[in-house]
């Protein structure tokens, strides 16, 4: 094999490697982009649980029942904002 043929072979191998890497990167980006589309979000199992909890609680119609009058009892803790 001449030195020119050897050089051409190296170029072909390099081009193949670049093509494979580009395809892999595109596939990874496509998967990530799909997850950003509304309705296709998939998180970890723990985040899915937390997300479900937030949605449920934000839409609750009975959360007003979490508070009741204190009838003048002294506070045990202060909610002052932070």
């Amino acid at each position: 094999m001449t030195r020119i043929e050897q050089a051409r072979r190296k170029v072909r191998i390099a081009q193949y490697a670049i093509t494979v890497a580009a395809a892999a990167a595109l596939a990874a980006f496509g998967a990530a982009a799909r997850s950003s589309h509304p309705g296709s979000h998939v998180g970890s199992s723990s985040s899915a649980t937390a997300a479900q909890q937030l949605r449920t609680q934000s839409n609750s119609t009975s959360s007003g029942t979490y508070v009741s009058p204190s009838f003048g009892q002294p506070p045990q803790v202060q909610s002052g904002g932070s």
Partner: protein
Amino acid sequence: MNGFRSMGCDVVVRDGVPLAPVRRLFAERDRRFSRFIQASELNRVNAAPLGVAVVSEDFASMLSLSLDAARATDGLVTPCVGRALTAAGYDRDFALLPRDALRLEPAAVPSYRTVSVRGRIVLRAETVELDLNGVVKGTTVDEALAAVGEGWVSAGGDLATAEPVVVGLPDGGSVTLDAGGLATSSVAKRRWLAGGAEQSHLIDPRTGAPTRSRWRDVTVAAASCTSADVAAKAALLLDSDGPDWLDERGLAGRFVDRRGVVVFSAGWAGHALAA
């Protein structure tokens, strides 16, 4: 007091409740999510604020929850305010802020839709500096209560309880929180001046600047501290629409305006006020 300092506030648990697991959880979360701890995971993620980042499971979970909060509030409580907070001058621990800094221009807040999470992969389609404060404290309070399984846990006055507890409210008065969580969002404490103009830590993503809402304090009760905290922030940012927004969601809220006048949502008036 059965408590300690973390996340820039006092963390208190009911007497008799073990403190160690609560302290451990808060320390872990502070190390991971603080903007003011140089080696935090948040700062590592924000160091390259565009494209793909691999994060811890805890970070991915918290960011997912934060994006859910953004969806539930039409983008008002969003994790995309990191750069806007810095632009407002909030670039170091609050105790270290100069009381009158140079005036800075507001920074536009990118849409939360430019951020997505899949497993432990975070993708940002635009340059976004994250700030997860909208959910970190409330979630840590909820998880701390779950860890100890009794009593109540409070962080800076945002609390979750497993038993009835009497809570003092901004500008006086009190209420019994029977279960779930209660949180107050306020612009009364963390505020400073920049170029002579008052700033606060609560960024309105529609302007990129600290809120100019009429409300000084908004207190909300909900099924958890996380939900109460997110709803309180959104209601404060919504200005005059805040009470109706809570009513539409069946949430109990108490509003104090900048002159000290107190207004109640229908849910609060119906349950928390003595007849």
